[in-house]
């Protein structure tokens, strides 16, 4: 389905369309485009079975730059339209590109329903914590107190965490990466591609025009090791240049930072990450950690299995066709109560 049959595998360049890329110079979107094209080439995808669907926003310009099928839809509705695409033709490889406004604000309802249904769609959420295309209003993911054009005295709304919301909605796969973390991002995208149901990838993306530096407190190379923590399945949750600091939950399920080698703490005291937890509680505890006080969790936050929606829908149709597929149109039209005049 995603590999062309008798053709040489495509290169990253083959995934570039002939359209000029029109994001602002320096925009984080470029890095994501690059990572996606690279990942698609590595995954051996072909062009014509791949569909990239987006809403409206700077990020949602994405499909124009991909030499695949593409649908730039309307604001917030891409998850619904993509659901139609995937259910109608499960053989297509459907990717959805959306922004924090597109997905969390106007599209919030479609977003949560996509996740709970577990439609086999891969969602790349470009979270720049701002409305880019409409020139810089705060978004549902903007930090409280943010001064923007529409909030001269600071925003009041408590920010929404896409990961927490997705957990609440029953997401089966959640990954997180950063626009400038090329190989990391590529890897998370490839993990998402391998997931059977809905795979959400939150990507922190710098909007250098309206929200420059939003992620500087943990994105910069020099502090990355201290300020982010990579969640690896089956491995202890450690971070820091020397990997000697770890995270665990205390009795009240509050996260705690511990230093291995101090106060008798060993690696065994650190929580071992299990992306396949039945309960979303652990991921929730991590998603809800304060960004200021804890390292930012990256990698795969959740990866569990539930049948993909489109498969079950089509299976019902197949069953019905096996059982009653021989009904002729004429019989259907006639119905049970035909009479003649």
């Amino acid at each position, binding site marked *: 389905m995603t590999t062309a049959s008798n053709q040489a595998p495509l290169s990253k360049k083959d995934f570039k*369309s002939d*359209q000029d890329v029109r994001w602002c110079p320096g925009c984080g979107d470029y890095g994501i485009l690059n990572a996606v094209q690279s990942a698609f080439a590595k995954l051996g995808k072909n*062009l*014509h*079975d791949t*569909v990239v*669907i987006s809403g*409206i926003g700077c990020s949602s310009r994405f*499909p*124009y730059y*991909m*030499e*695949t*099928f*593409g*649908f*730039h*839809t*309307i604001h917030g*509705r891409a*998850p*619904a*339209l*993509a*659901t*139609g*695409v*995937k*259910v*109608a*033709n499960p*053989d*297509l490889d459907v990717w959805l590109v959306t922004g924090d406004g597109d997905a969390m604000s106007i599209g919030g*309802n*479609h977003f949560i*329903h996509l996740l709970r249904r577990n439609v086999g769609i891969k969602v790349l959420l470009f979270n720049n914590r701002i409305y880019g295309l409409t020139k810089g209003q705060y978004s549902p993911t903007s930090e409280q107190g943010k001064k923007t054009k529409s909030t001269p005295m600071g925003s009041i709304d408590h920010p929404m965490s896409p990961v927490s919301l997705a957990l609440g909605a029953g997401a089966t796969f959640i990954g997180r990466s950063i626009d400038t973390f090329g190989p990391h991002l590529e890897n998370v995208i490839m993990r998402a591609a391998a997931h059977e149901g809905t795979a959400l990838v939150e990507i922190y993306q710098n909007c250098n025009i309206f929200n420059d530096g939003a992620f500087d407190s943990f994105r910069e190379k020099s502090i990355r090791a201290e300020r982010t923590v990579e969640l690896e399945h089956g491995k202890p949750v450690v971070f820091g240049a020397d990997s000697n600091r770890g995270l665990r939950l205390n009795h009240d399920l509050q996260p705690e930072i511990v230093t291995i080698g101090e106060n008798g703490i060993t690696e065994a005291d650190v929580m071992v990450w299990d992306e396949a937890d039945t309960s979303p509680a652990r991921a929730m505890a991590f998603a809800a950690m304060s960004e200021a006080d804890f390292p930012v969790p990256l990698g795969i936050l959740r990866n569990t299995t539930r049948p993909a929606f489109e498969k079950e*829908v*089509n299976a*019902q*149709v197949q*069953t*019905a*066709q096996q*059982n*009653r*597929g021989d*009904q*002729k*149109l*004429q019989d*259907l*039209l*006639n*119905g049970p*109560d*035909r*009479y*003649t*005049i």
Partner: protein
Amino acid sequence: MVQDPHNGTQATDKSVEALDEVIIRFAGDSGDGMQLTGSQFTRTTALMGNDLATFPDFPAEIRAPAGTLPGVSAFQLRFSNFDIHTPGNQPHVLVAMNPAALKVHIDQLPRDGLLILNTAKFRPADLKKAKYAENPLEDGSLDGYRVVQVDLEKLTHETLKESPLDKRSKDRCKNMFALGMLYWLYNRDVEPTLKALDDTFAKKNPDIAEANKQVVKAGYNYADITGLFQTSYTVSKATDLPSGSYRNIMGNQALCLGLVAASKKSNLPIFLGSYPITPASDILHQLSGYKNHGVITFQAEDEIAAVCAALGAAYTGKIGVTTTSGPGLALKGEAIGLAVMTELPLVIINVQRSGPSTGMPTKTEQADLLQAMCGRNGESPVPVLAATSPSDAFATAFEAVRIALEYMTPVIVLSDGAIANGSEPWLIPDETELPGISVNFLPAATETDEPFMPYRRNPETLARNWAIPGTEGLQHRIGGIEKADLTGNISYDPDNHEHMTMVRENKVAGIANSIPDVTTVGPDEGDVLILGWGSTRGPIAGAVRAMEPSGKKVSGCCLRYINPFPNNLGDLMKRFKRVLIPELNRGQLSMLIRNKYLIDATSYTKVQGLPFYTDELVKRVDQILEELQR
């Protein structure tokens, strides 16, 4: 042709009279099973070869408190031995299961009408719930009606003495006693109902099946033995209907069959995206039972998701359909605009109900025509079709799919509450005689092909190429931003925008060349043309037929195609001195006609949540004829 019933031709058997037509109204509590009773009588009557039309009228509440006025549910059936067009206005027979039903409906029974009352429910508490100060059975207010009083509860319980059912379940059978009585009165065949009861209940609950069957028969016998009615009546087969195979069909059913037929004829599966809403939900229900015909139904989280999912499915090469009612259509406007811009086929079915806002959800109206025409931002032309009767909904749905696929355009189909739940006999089409719908997906592009252009068009229909995902070499990007001609790339070029605006407009206008000329009931010239659309067809045809004998030069015409109008409509209207446009709104078709043809059409509107009655139209036409004579 129309005659006072119960005064019909005397039949040979002393106790049997033949009638041309009968109108029965069953009215009772929401819990009394009036809709079921009505549909059983309807089905039996259809099988006996009468023409018929029905009008169900039920409350918004699921089960309003028993015995109250808002809880009254009614079902009207008109059947005949000739071609009829409407379920009629005043009934000949009113069955009232309780005082509330009596109170709500008695005004419409003519004084010599037959009134069958369930006396079991005329206790003081019942009267109070129905807000009767006095007992109408006793205060003389029913004088003049031919009242038949029956204690349906007692008789039902007596019949079911031996049944193992509990009291409540037995009580529930009483509607079948009334049905049995009416079967005797109109010489209907009891068998189909007995069979239907078996089919419905025998497996799940044989005791209930048995009880109901006993009670129908008991009701029949009771009427027979007691001589409660002096005479029984017959209505013979309708003779002026075209011969062929028929079934009785409701509008929502017919829509579903039309969609499935178009699916088979185009070899494309249906994808329905829908969100439940009265009175459209039954389309979702019915289509979700057609999975064996390849139909996918998707109950979305809201109307916007429903239309977007259908559009997504259309993008992949399926027949995308979405169904809703007025408030839902209001929500879908933005997404329909996206379908206009991306030029993808899509069928949007709007079963209209009374508005504005939530309005009166269970009542009918035709006030969404302008919303269908104009309810989107920008110049966003969409073909609009309207089903003109329950059975016509089949052809309308079929045509909508054809137009959507042939012209690569969203199409809006308007139906309404009266069509959705009303029923009439339908001359079942022969599958092989239905036209084929040809669909050409663009084939995979090879290296040597001329460059692929997603917005290249069929020069005749102006339909753009349908290049579905999964086809090698046809990768392209579409979206809601204005498209450059041919390439479909984003374009802000002023001339291109004007050009594409005109292409979209002309494409829809050009559909006029693929639809039939409109025809008239009555001659195609004269004094007054009654011009309607959608469900006004019945009353218009009825009015024209009613006026025919008097020699008045009145014809009728009812549009199934509203955007574009049939090519001959302008000329047709000019051949009449006056065009009268009756609508269940405040003049919406009238606005379109006056604007386009600059004809001083007279608008006649009714906004009561009810269909037009034939006699209302006759009266209005008479006024106009008088004016014309002055």
